[in-house]
């Protein structure tokens, strides 16, 4: 910690063209020539792509040749290339923290494309501001911390399961946390999957069993994340194991009930008198107050719905010697330590009744695609017979309404494409042609997005099978009160005429949205979201699995609508990314820690309350009370430094004199 101004600062400035991205607007030569006039600058240079190898070599060579004490690169954004240029600075033999970036692309040439003169002036200012900071930068050493050799995956859909399996296979102990009583996610509600039409359960169930059996996976179903503390390598995650009311064989054994615990026999549910709708069947089938979602659940352990349970005790009796049912169960809290975490929180169906023009929930025979999946599925509530909810008849004319709530810029809809509805609606069209003789699917679409491998081929196939395609957005749906048939009103934009089509059933390909607890969970992990609530990746192209919170990664539809192949691919990517710090064994934290300038510290202790991480405390030193920082807890936000009335807190890399030098450099032109 050196508060003394570095009087002998020798700074090199490098201005990047970024091809024409910067040079197309900003006068590079003028910025470079100007840089040479800034105090402390001893060399200024420019290059087409500073991030390229020759560009980086320029920096390293100049450091040696001009004996530089600091480096400024005026280019894109530090959020992209600060690490690159720090490496180049280190390659020249200088401490990498003696580097400062001036953002003249993302926050200049790209946003002032038609004002080259003003943009060039702004770039000069930005360089001057950066030089002022670079002149005062000091050597810093990143703090190396060990990484806990365990990982956590939150969300047990196909994405979370794949991520957990990959981590486990890489030898990493993994906690798989799922809020519902079983893993499987949405995929277990599907009948067949496009474009191969293999049965969803048939390909999913073996994976569920693998997860359950894998020795490296600790499966925690009916469990939610309650709190997260710490940082990459050392997260302390507190979990709420919701009261399940039923003991697993393991838990029973722990309680001394030999050979006890739930075997999944279902005797309890047979006697339970309380009947509730089964959410897995979207309310179209009943379940008891003690229940499983469906026969393939994993783990095969029943769950008591304590909101519905009347505590009659019949299930306890029916369970008998196994003594699995515990109606006095309470939520339990456990805290586990993990090095890295993956969020795989999936999606929910957008409440399409909000788009009242489609009549969902008002008209019996308007259903959603997910309901269609359950109705067409052999293990579903109707044994795979698609029937009209109004009269149990088999529908012959079925309209599929695509983009229901998607690609919809009104207040009630979602602006984005939900991405898999085109494909699953083609699948649904195929299924009714195959299952119901004489049935005709009418697909109302804006355009069919069949972008994946073998998807376009699948589209042709469905066209050849006789599905009817009507290009036009559905304006509204009305019901014939007598027959309960529906009229779909749209404009056929290919023929340029209005359509009023009478059908027996309407299937809405409803938009999807982030799952209900995404918001709460992402905040616990400090992950940002995009405007629509989908979790935000660290970089859309270069780091699509990472987040801005080091050590936390994303998999599957929670990052944005994704079908199964894309979900699994991203899950494998996230698992690989999450295993890297664990296999390395240690990570480097940016050393932006607070330090106490003891001569200035009055020992008032006000800062102690500013720190959200309890990193500060008061100690006795040389007969005085002064503040002390616990570096392992400090995350470097600077909240204490922004507060200390005596200016006694030195924020490494963001120290007050450095920031004031930047302010002065801009406003006073660098002189003072």
């Amino acid at each position: 910690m050196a508060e003394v101004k570095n009087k002998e600062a020798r700074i090199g400035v490098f201005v990047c063209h970024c091809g024409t991205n910067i040079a197309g607007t900003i006068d590079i030569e003028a910025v470079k020539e100007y840089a040479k006039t800034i105090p402390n600058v001893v060399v200024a240079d420019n290059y087409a792509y500073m991030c390229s190898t020759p560009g980086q070599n320029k920096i390293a060579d100049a450091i040696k040749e001009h004996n530089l004490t600091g480096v400024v690169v005026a280019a894109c954004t530090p959020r992209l290339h600060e690490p690159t240029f720090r490496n180049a600075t280190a390659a020249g033999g200088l401490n990498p923290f003696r580097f400062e970036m001036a953002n003249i692309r993302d926050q200049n040439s790209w946003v002032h494309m038609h004002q080259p003169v003003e943009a060039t002036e702004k770039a000069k200012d930005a360089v001057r501001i950066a030089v002022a900071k670079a002149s005062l930068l000091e050597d810093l050493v990143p703090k190396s911390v060990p990484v806990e050799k365990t990982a956590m995956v939150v969300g047990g859909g196909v994405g979370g399961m794949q991520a957990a399996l990959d981590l486990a296979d890489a030898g990493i102990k993994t906690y798989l946390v799922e809020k519902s009583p079983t893993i499987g996610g949405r995929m277990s509600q599907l009948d067949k999957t496009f474009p191969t039409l293999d049965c969803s359960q048939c390909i999913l169930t073996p994976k569920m069993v693998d997860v359950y059996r894998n020795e490296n996976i600790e499966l925690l179903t009916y469990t939610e994340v309650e709190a997260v503390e710490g940082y990459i390598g050392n997260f302390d995650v507190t979990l709420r194991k919701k009261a399940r009311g039923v003991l697993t064989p393991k838990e029973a054994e722990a309680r001394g009930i030999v050979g006890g615990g739930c075997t999944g026999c279902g005797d309890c549910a047979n006697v339970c008198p309380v009947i509730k709708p089964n959410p897995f069947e979207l309310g179209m089938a009943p379940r008891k107050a003690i229940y499983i979602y469906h026969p393939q659940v994993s783990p095969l352990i029943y769950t008591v719905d304590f909101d519905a349970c009347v505590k009659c005790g019949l299930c306890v009796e029916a369970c008998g010697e196994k003594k699995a049912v515990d109606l006095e169960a309470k939520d339990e809290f456990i805290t586990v330590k993990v090095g890295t975490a993956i969020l795989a929180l999936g999606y929910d169906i957008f409440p399409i009744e909000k788009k009242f023009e489609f009549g969902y929930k008002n008209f019996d025979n308007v259903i959603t695609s997910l309901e269609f999946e359950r109705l067409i599925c052999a293990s579903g509530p109707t044994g795979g017979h698609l029937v009209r909810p109004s009269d149990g008849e088999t529908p012959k004319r079925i309209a599929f309404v695509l983009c229901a709530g998607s690609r919809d810029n009104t207040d009630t809809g979602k602006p984005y494409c939900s991405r898999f509805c085109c494909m699953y609606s083609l699948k649904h069209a195929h299924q009714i042609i195959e299952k119901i003789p004489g049935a005709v699917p009418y697909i109302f679409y804006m355009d069919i997005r069949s972008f994946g491998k073998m998807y376009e081929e699948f589209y042709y196939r469905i066209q050849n099978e006789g599905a009817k395609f009507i290009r036009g957005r559905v304006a509204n749906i009305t019901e014939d009160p007598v027959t309960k048939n529906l009229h779909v009103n749209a404009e056929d934009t290919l023929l340029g005429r209005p359509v009023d089509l009478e059908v027996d059933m309407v299937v809405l390909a409803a938009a999807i949205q982030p799952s209900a607890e995404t918001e709460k969970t992402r905040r616990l992990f400090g992950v940002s979201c995009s405007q629509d609530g989908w979790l935000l990746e660290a970089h859309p192209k270069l780091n699509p699995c990472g987040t801005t919170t080091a050590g936390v990664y994303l998999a599957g539809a929670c990052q944005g609508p994704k079908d199964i192949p894309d979900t699994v691919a991203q899950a494998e990517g996230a698992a690989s990314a999450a295993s890297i710090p664990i296999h390395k064994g240690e990570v480097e934290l940016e050393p932006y820690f607070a330090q106490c300038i003891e001569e200035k510290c009055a020992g008032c202790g006000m800062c102690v309350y500013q720190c959200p991480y309890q990193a500060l405390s008061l100690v006795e030193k040389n007969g005085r009370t002064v503040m002390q920082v616990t570096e392992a807890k400090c995350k470097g936000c600077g909240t204490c430094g922004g507060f200390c009335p005596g200016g006694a807190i030195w924020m490494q890399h963001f120290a007050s004199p450095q920031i004031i030098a930047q302010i002065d450099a801009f406003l006073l032109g660098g002189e003072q």
Partner: protein
Amino acid sequence: MADENWKPKIIAIICNWCSYAGADLAGGARIQYPPDIRAVRVMCTGRVDPLFILKAFQDGADGVLVSGCHFGDCHYLEGNYKAAKRMFLLKSVLKNIGLDDKRLRMTFVSASEGAKWGMVMEDVVKTINELGPSPLNELAR
């Protein structure tokens, strides 16, 4: 009042995780906004010492913007709450020294709000243009 060539001098102190990222996103989306603002990056708005802002005004800034994450989204949990409190108090100090408190502004722009960043830029520049040069600046001359 201001001469014709007067251009406002505005400094923005913005947090790394939300507003800086949002400003970068505005660039990616090629959103165009007035070029009168210069940015200083800090890790969190909690870092912003009121003295920085007073120093900026003393140096002749016509306006200061502090921009961070939305409440509840601060990368360090609550830095932005602390900052908002300080900015609020600071505004009354500004009034006392004869500055219109509209010259200091705090906004909350997330990493996904590139368009909002553009709007904030427009709006801050417009406000300061309407207020004209800082009276402290005039005095200094």
